């Protein structure tokens, strides 16, 4: 077994490394999540094979974004490899902050990467980051509670109205089970990751074709009213302070009957060592309403090489190893197949060992392939992105709108006030940025 693992590791490295002559010391800035921890744990194998050395800088997502932005914008050169998301990759690529990654070697199977993932990390046809893992969103539900309530797993994509009926039947706070747990904590990557696709489902959009914000539209009002009512009636107390982590813990502890969130959380929910509902959970597509476009989000964590790095060749060598098919196999063989990086490569979903270990695999694949960031809404939009808008100004706007909606959820203001404030803020920001003349 040990020999087998060593062989896989050796083969992986031999296949994807070009073998640069000079040993380099690379600094890699990354986020703290379980996939990255595994990468950090396995990377000594790559160091041993290539002679290069990796220095790890692990930071919280928002701190990392600020830190890396400062360094790249000032050409600091502190980092040779950075972990960035699907939001930053095209924006930073266009700015000239990242090196193109079309030349990772003959052994690197580009065609094996899912097309939506590749497109999401490209700008003007150039790939600027290679995916480490990718995710969409779907609905987790408790099979035992469904059975008790006489409900059946939907075979087709249901509407949010049907979802609310379902949740009402499952809500049982006296026995410590809430009908649904959804993100409420303010932030463009927190509550807006759930709210964005829901607004898309209700037929809303962030901007019209002239970049005018449309947050005060009837579609937004219908979506946010639905969200606030749903959470107030069937959500856990204090929902406005629950983000992904809090809901994940609540669901794993058996407190939630349903939860629409990242497909990447499935590996955790289905792990009996970490979740008390591992054998009682199943999933179906995230709901639609007036449209099914943009109802499941798309996100990827990817590795990129900043243009300020002076060790580009060695950095690309590492990228070619850490995002290769062979690396996925290495993780599967050493850490267990359920821990293999999901959502990036076709070959992962053709692997029977992975399919057997991860019952959610096919649904994740379907959700990711169905996500189309280039056409996310019912009405046409000038932007790409499902739960975000791929423009630099979105981070500020998304955070502000997230705060307004969280305040409405907490009962500090009405939905109308939240949307009016959000609209005013978005108009001001977009005018300042020159989108609105």
């Amino acid at each position, binding site marked *: 077994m040990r020999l087998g693992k060593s062989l896989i590791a050796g083969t992986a490295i031999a296949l994807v490394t070009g073998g640069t002559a000079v040993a380099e010391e690379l*600094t890699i*800035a990354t*986020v*703290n*999540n*379980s996939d990255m*921890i595994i990468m*950090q*744990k396995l990377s000594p194998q790559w160091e041993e094979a290539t002679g290069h050395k990796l*220095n*790890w*800088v*692990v*930071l*919280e*997502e*928002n*701190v990392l974004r*600020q*830190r890396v932005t*400062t*360094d790249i*914008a*000032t*050409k*600091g*050169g*502190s*980092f040779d490899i950075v972990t960035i998301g699907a939001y930053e990759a095209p924006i930073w690529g266009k700015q000239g902050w990242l090196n193109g990654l079309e030349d990772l070697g003959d052994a690197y199977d580009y065609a094996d990467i899912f097309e939506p993932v590749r497109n999401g990390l490209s700008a003007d046809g150039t790939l600027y980051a290679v995916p480490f893992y990718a995710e969409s969103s779907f609905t987790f539900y408790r099979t035992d509670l469904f059975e008790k309530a006489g409900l059946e797993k939907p075979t087709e994509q249901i509407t949010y109205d049907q979802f609310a009926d379902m949740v009402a039947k499952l809500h049982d706070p006296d026995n410590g089970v809430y009908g649904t747990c959804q993100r409420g904590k303010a932030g463009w*990557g*927190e509550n807006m990751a759930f709210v964005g696709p829901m607004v898309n489902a209700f037929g809303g959009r962030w901007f019209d074709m002239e970049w005018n914000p449309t947050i005060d539209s009837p579609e937004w009002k219908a979506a946010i009213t639905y969200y606030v009512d749903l959470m107030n009636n069937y959500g856990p107390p204090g929902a406005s302070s629950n*983000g*992904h*982590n809090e809901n*994940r*813990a609540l669901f*794993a*502890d058996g407190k939630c009957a349903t939860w629409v969130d*990242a497909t*990447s959380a499935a590996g*955790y929910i289905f792990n009996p*060592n*970490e979740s008390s509902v591992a054998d009682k959970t199943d999933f179906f597509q995230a709901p639609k309403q007036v449209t099914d476009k943009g109802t499941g989000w798309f996100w990827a964590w990817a590795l990129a090489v900043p243009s300020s790095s002076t060790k580009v060749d060695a950095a690309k060598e590492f990228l070619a190893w850490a995002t290769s098919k062979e690396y996925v196999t290495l993780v599967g063989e050493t850490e267990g197949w359920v821990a293999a990086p999901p959502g990036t490569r076709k070959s992962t979903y053709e692997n029977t060992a992975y399919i057997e270990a991860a019952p959610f695999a096919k649904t994740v694949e379907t959700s990711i392939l169905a996500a189309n960031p280039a056409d996310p809404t019912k009405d046409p939009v000038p932007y790409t992105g499902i739960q975000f808008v791929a423009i630099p100004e979105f981070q500020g706007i998304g955070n502000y709108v997230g705060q307004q909606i969280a305040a409405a959820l907490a009962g500090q203001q009405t939905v109308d006030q939240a949307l009016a404030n959000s609209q005013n803020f978005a108009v001001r920001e977009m005018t300042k940025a020159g989108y609105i003349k």
Partner: protein
Amino acid sequence: MARAVTASRKALTTAIAGALAFLMFFPILWIVVLSLKTEVDAIRAPWQVLTSGWTFESYGAVQERSDYFKHFWNSVIIAFGSTLLGLVIAVPAAWAMAFVPGKRTKDVLMWMLSTKMLPPVGVLVPIYLLFINIGLLDTRFGLVIVLMLINLPIIIWMLYTYFREIPGEILEAARMDGASLREEVLYVLTPMAIPGMASTVLLNVILAWNEAFWTLNLTASKAAPLTAFIASYSSPEGLFYAKLSAASVMAIAPILIMGWFSQKQLVRGLTFGAVK
């Protein structure tokens, strides 16, 4: 004449003080409790957290993944280095302002204090560019300089306040006995201001130890202190509460222990000159 205090009043005051002290210490206590739980237990309801099993596994995991001692030494060098360097500059400055004040001394003091009101992020890019150009990015020396400059107004203000409490006549007497300026500061002023200087050092070491804006923004891997060590366990996606708590305990423990042992000195210094 001392006011008479009844036993019941004394007991009530003690109880309120004890409750307040517990309330203030509770977050640290809770971090310690969470650090001794598994990740699964750490996210349970508070009473379940307390009744579940205890383990040191998070400490082991943190030490295995991150080099604690490297971060610890960086913290020690940066915190003590910046404070001592600050002291070398602040003692003569505070002496001059306390014993030979000019017309503009008060304005200079206020101006120095006003620099503390500037949001650090406002000068991040200029300082970052300076650091790139002079090669100080991700170096301990660079952080020593920055933290010294940031804390210098506080050091000067504290020392100035202590020095003002020392009668000028004593220094005059030393001068009449033929002491040079250096001897006057070194052998007369400094020994008399030791309690004040000790509390200044302690307070500034604590401030520098806990500083998390510049230490995160101006370092990558080589000079990263314990603030970066804690930050590496914070995550919006994934459960790391127990490990984050263990990392926090490991980061605050040295300064907590130091504060514990020197609290008498700290309080004495902070109240120095309060009662004449």
